[in-house]
């Protein structure tokens, strides 16, 4: 199998990666680059814990080939905070006790970020629909939804 030389932009940083064509973005993030904030679970786009943003859109990194990300902007949870400051969504998740075991949370936050960019003042129903592709097996959904709504309100207040 011929290896591919890829240039991936992850969290604003360029990475040169030499990898087999069958490896996914998730493989490269976790194993090659040590970015383990993106979680691995079902590997079939059912659970959503591997969600990252590619060009601002939420995708399942477990079924996206790394080769398909050449030339695109990838954002993982590690790239969300700026200058040592938590992102407002991260702050809201902490403030609302939205994190139990935590395994689904990086992906929840990134899905919420992508949705809020497009829909800055969502209803509770819209937030639930926006997060439908992210499973939480602690079933802490209510506090997760509360946190996303609070982050949206806070950002509306700042505008």
């Amino acid at each position: 199998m011929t290896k591919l030389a890829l240039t991936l932009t992850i969290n604003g940083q360029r990475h040169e990666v030499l990898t087999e064509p069958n490896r996914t973005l998730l493989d490269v993030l976790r194993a090659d680059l040590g970015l383990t904030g993106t979680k691995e679970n079902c590997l079939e786009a059912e659970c959503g814990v591997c969600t990252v943003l590619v060009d601002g859109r939420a995708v399942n990194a477990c079924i996206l080939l790394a080769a398909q990300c050449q030339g695109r902007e990838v954002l993982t949870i590690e790239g969300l905070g700026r200058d040592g400051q938590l992102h407002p969504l991260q702050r809201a998740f902490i403030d609302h006790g939205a994190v139990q075991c935590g395994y689904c949370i990086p992906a929840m936050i990134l899905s919420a970020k992508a949705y809020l960019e497009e829909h800055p003042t969502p209803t509770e129903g819209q937030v639930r629909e926006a997060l439908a592709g992210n499973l939480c097996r602690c079933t802490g959904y209510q506090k997760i939804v509360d946190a996303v709504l609070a982050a949206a309100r806070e950002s509306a207040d700042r505008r």
Partner: protein
Amino acid sequence: MSFEYHEPTSVAEAIDLGARFGADGRFLAGGTDLIIQIHRGKLRPRHVVSLHRVPGLDGIEANGSVTLGALVTHRALERHPAFQASLRALVEGAEVVGGHQVRNVGTVGGNIVNASPAADVTPVLLALDATVTCAGPRGERTLPLDGFLADPGQTALRPGELLTRVRFSTLSERSATAFLKAGRRRAMEISVVCVAARLTLDATGERFTEARIALGAVAPTTRRARAAEQALVGRAPTQAALREAGRLAAIESQPISDVRASARYRTLLVETLVTRALTRCLGRIRGTVS
């Protein structure tokens, strides 16, 4: 799973690669089905030909007829202004495919070629009398979607051939569409049954001039319920006529029992959902239902 990876930058180049690899090759669109099937070992292509650098396959044109490039995503269907009125079933089908992560990358062409009996968008396209255009080494051919779907995972696509676009007519203001899906939960669910419908009333509003009903997850492919369709043509738009169409569609369906539902339950769902989808179409034509 190991394969060579190719990124053609034109349809012509993609077709050349398709012809060269034949049954050893697979075109990659969104990958939301293909990559999973490769991971599971159900498909073992030696060559994967990614289409994401081929320009011109992700466009939506809507003027008199609608043309969807094979790489149009479910996300793009959901958001397109041309599909918010009489073609609303397209939005209703697209918005229940997986979560946002899947809809952001999964494509119309992939939904068709994957040929799942439970596909959500293909019933809508069947109800719209869509055609598909396939490009291969011997040129292009356009054929009805109805008949293109052969069996689970099987279509009339020849080895190396590439589905490039889907086309259907826009609807008159006396027509409307609707899509309904039943699953064990509302989100992230493979359909237990899904139904797409299209109705057209005559100028006086007293008779149906055309009807289409397409069913998912009740046969080896998504398919039309022809007897139910024919029973509506020429009939007055009464609730009794819509209920009879539901009964006929249930008789026509050939569901199996599986992990999601029993055949008996699916048959009951077909009757109810077909009647409801037709009722919604009628309400939309009359402007009483959004």
